[in-house]
């Protein structure tokens, strides 16, 4: 009996701790939220774009010029450049403090999520202004040059010029800093580029191998400067002198400093969700969860009496554990994710119902209440395990299927099923076992029966 009470206390402490955590870390519940420790403040619910409102942009990168073993690395560099650009201090006024996420999706795509940004135009403009900086060397002699004539039958000069050069590994990715200078003689603006360590090595190599030849600096696909290399340049500095006025040059320097792209990107998908739409979805989702929960506990208590009451209690602990996990992991909640969570509430109850039906059967075969409870649990376990396996299989495959919408659903459903196997069984069992009915009085039998029987 003593260790039964200890287990009950343990469950109560666990339940209390998770409830306290959820309460303290939720500004809507906790009036003193501002005064809380940063641990609580740093764990809000993370809402997906469909709930918080915001923008989702999907870009496809042109990786055709990149060696296939390098693609992953280059995509990472592209991601970093875009992230730096979006989060640069100059733009924070536009984007506020919301957490922008930029991530590589699939092999050659970049997904950008901007929570709270309901007008993506600004972001799209910033990205489209990100310069594409490439260093190219002369095409080896003898290699054929193919240029398709344009629609008007003429050959585009830029395209022809571009074809005379081949790409090198040196791109805007290795740019450390750009600055504006003026030619002391002509007063024409010159842009100074300073490479990072890798860039410096690459540039030294390129210049060494191409003495007497042209090295072309391409900006956004067209050559802006094609100097002839006189000697190896080991210090990692390059100059662009082109036909731009001081204002253009200043703008370019600024853009280069926000990060230059290693390859071209195209916007292939955009999604914007207005803030009110998201807010309504949150309210509706929370309401649905609360109402669904009330339905379920009224059913449990009316139909299953004492065990039903205990099951409702363990369901509460299940829900707070899930909420705590959502905060701690953290899980990005979407409307579909909330749906998955709500379904998992139903499944959590399913396990308890299985157990109670078994207990009832055991009671019918004239066993004592205590025996009925313990055999009921052990017999129901196999059914619970079997019926949850198929849900877990589905959740796993859905998670792999993985657009963010579905991942949210699969994750909350899968977590819910796993946590419910712990909470529904262990917690309910611990509590039921304390009600140590030695006798088989009418009261005990009534409390453990169900439905409309007496």
């Amino acid at each position, binding site marked *: 009996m003593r260790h039964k009470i200890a287990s009950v206390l343990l469950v109560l402490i666990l339940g209390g701790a998770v409830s306290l955590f959820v309460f303290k870390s939720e500004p809507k519940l906790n009036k003193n939220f501002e005064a809380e420790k940063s641990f609580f403040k740093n764990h809000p619910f993370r809402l997906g774009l*469909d709930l918080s409102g915001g923008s989702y942009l*999907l870009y*496809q990168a042109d990786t055709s010029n990149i060696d296939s073993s390098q693609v992953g690395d280059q995509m990472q560099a592209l991601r970093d450049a875009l992230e730096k650009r979006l989060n640069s201090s100059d733009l924070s006024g536009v984007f506020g403090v919301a957490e922008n996420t930029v991530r590589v999706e699939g092999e050659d795509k970049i997904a950008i999520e901007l929570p709270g940004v*309901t007008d993506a*135009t600004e972001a*799209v403009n910033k990205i*489209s202004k990100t310069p594409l900086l490439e260093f190219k060397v002369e095409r080896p002699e003898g290699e054929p040059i193919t240029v398709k004539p344009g629609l008007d039958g003429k050959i585009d000069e830029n395209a022809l010029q571009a074809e005379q050069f081949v790409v090198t590994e040196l791109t805007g990715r290795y740019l450390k800093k750009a600055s504006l200078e003026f030619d002391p003689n002509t007063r024409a603006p010159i842009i100074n580029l300073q490479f990072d360590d890798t860039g410096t090595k690459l540039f030294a190599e390129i210049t060494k191998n191409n003495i007497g030849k042209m090295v072309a600096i391409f900006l956004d696909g067209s050559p802006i400067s094609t100097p002839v290399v006189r000697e190896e340049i080991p210090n990692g500095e390059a100059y662009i002198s082109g036909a731009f006025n001081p204002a253009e040059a200043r703008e370019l320097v600024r853009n280069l400093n926000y990060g230059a792209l290693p390859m071209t990107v195209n*916007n*292939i*998908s*955009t*999604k*914007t969700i*207005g803030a*009110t*739409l998201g807010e*309504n*979805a949150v309210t*509706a*989702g929370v*309401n*649905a*969860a609360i*109402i*669904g929960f009330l*339905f*379920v506990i009224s*059913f*449990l208590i009316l139909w299953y009496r004492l065990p039903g009451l205990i099951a409702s209690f363990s369901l509460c602990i299940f829900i707070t554990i899930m909420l705590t996990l959502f905060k701690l992991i953290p899980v990005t909640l979407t*409307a*579909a994710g*909330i*749906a998955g969570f*709500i*379904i998992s*509430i*139903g*499944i959590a*109850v*399913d396990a308890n*119902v*299985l157990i109670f*039906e078994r207990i009832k059967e055991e009671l019918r075969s004239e066993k004592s209440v205590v025996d009925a409870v313990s055999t009921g649990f052990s017999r129901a376990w196999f*059914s619970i395990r*079997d*019926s949850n396996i*198929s*849900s877990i*299989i*589905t*959740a796993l*495959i*859905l998670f*792999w299927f*993985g*657009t963010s919408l*579905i991942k949210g*659903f699969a994750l909350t*459903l899968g977590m819910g099923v796993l946590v419910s196997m712990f909470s529904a069984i262990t917690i309910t069992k611990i509590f039921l076992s304390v009600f140590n009915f030695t006798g088989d009085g009418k009261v005990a039998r009534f409390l453990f029966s169900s*439905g409309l029987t007496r």
Partner: protein
Amino acid sequence: MFIIKHKKIFISISVALVFLSLVSLFAFGLKVGIDFKGGALTEVVYTGERPAQEILDAKLQTLDLGGVLLQPTGEMGYIVKSRSLTDVEHTQLLTILSNDGENELTETNFNSIGPSVGRELTRKAIIALLLVSLAIICFIAFAFRKVSKPISSWRYGFIAIVTLLHDVIIPVGLFVFLSRYYGAEIDTLFVVAVLTILGLSVSDTIVIFDRIRENLNNQTNVANINFSEIVGKSLEQSYVRSISTSLTVILVLLALFFFGPVSTKYFALMLTTGMFFGTYSSIFLASPLLVIVEEWQTKSARKS
């Protein structure tokens, strides 16, 4: 057990519903949403006055967007469906919708999906469907590896799969109806719903078959098994459990349907139907089918 006695009626109901669903599926088809075929959806709400549809329709003709569909939504808004838009086209569209700046508006929803993204999602959805089906068939095979007499285990598996199809086809039939009369379109959530139904419905059937297996094992007199009686007894023992477990899930799904976010309404409705027929089929379809299969088997055994 009356279910076994009147098994033909219950099986007929299922056959009729499945037939109806399939006929409407092939007659009306399903609308495929932009998630899969690519395209753009723009939703705006006007802060002041909403311009007349004819004016905007005429102006939209000037844009080179191919077929554009303008639909009023709510009191103050429009939804525009078109092919996927570039940033420039998107801005142009918004200018037109605002009647060249005369009517102020806010964009509540914009979703543009390039055709390549849609194709990739379609491919993934098909793979996921195949994988889930395969995994569930493997699971069924595993769950019934020990059952044999008087019906071989693969027949249990086969019936479980028939039931599974039944459970998926009926909600899809419902979706055809929603698609035709309420403009519901196949999106990612539709696929999730189908996959979730696959996962949830099979477990119910398995629990009842499990019970049948247990009761068969308890028979001492193997020579004199009355199969339909045992199935009836197993049903009697497990139908309350079956109904109350799916009832709890259906209760929460109904809460989600009536009170939940708009975006998951059809999803909740499909799952509710799936859950309902999943339970119906495991009690009124799977077990009666089992008895029928057994009857055929004994008949043909007697003849030969």
